[in-house]
């Protein structure tokens, strides 16, 4: 599972041994939550498939972890690749796989 964020979010999340992804209200009519995707760094049209424009900075960094405990799929076709937690979502060190600049990790997942 992957979580994309900006510089500020990246430093805040990685500052703790257990990653904590904060639930927030996204634009549109999606429920408040912490959002995740199975689309890895380097995915073609990542921004378009998440349906965000002018938000390249918010995809600049990424966290990768194992498992999807407690995560719900988004309703509809995007539920194949987009999941969310309605409340803050924590990931203990034993589930953490990688984190860093999306561009750098894209080479790893290519």
């Amino acid at each position, binding site marked *: 599972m992957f979580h994309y964020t900006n510089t500020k979010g990246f430093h805040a999340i990685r500052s703790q041994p257990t990653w904590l992804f904060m639930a927030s209200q996204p634009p549109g009519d999606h429920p408040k939550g912490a959002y995740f995707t199975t689309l890895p760094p380097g995915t073609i049209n990542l921004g*378009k498939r998440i*349906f965000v424009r002018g938000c390249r900075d918010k995809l600049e960094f990424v966290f990768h972890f194992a498992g999807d405990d407690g995560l719900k799929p988004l309703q509809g076709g995007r539920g194949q690749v987009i999941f969310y937690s309605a409340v803050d979502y924590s990931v203990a060190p034993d589930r953490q796989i990688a984190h860093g600049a999306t561009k750098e990790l894209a080479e790893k997942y290519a």
Partner: protein
Amino acid sequence: MIGGKDIVIPAVGSPASLDACARVVQRQWPHARFENAETGEKYSKYGDIPFGTIRHLLAYPNEAAEALWDADSPDSPVNSMLYLILSEQSVTAVLDDPTAGEMPGILEGIKTMMEMEILNTAAVCDPEAA
């Protein structure tokens, strides 16, 4: 981080369903351009889309809208892209505002097409009857 509204329309998950959706889009957006969301392959017109191999289709009303999205521009107008996802029992339309511009017509057209009997009938070829 997520954007868009997801509108799930019951449908048969066949290439014909996605084809019908694209035809509706082309009717409402005469200068529509399309893209395979998974591969990035571009199609300048409806007739170029290789239905049967695509399950994730992006549609833009025109070349300018496509260029703005390609550039990740924050100035992309509302409803300047429609993301169609074909699933086993539905088509999901991801968009900005279902009530703005041509979008009500597009959504109504897609819903009507997905209800058509011909899209819900399996094709049968009987050589003896031919």
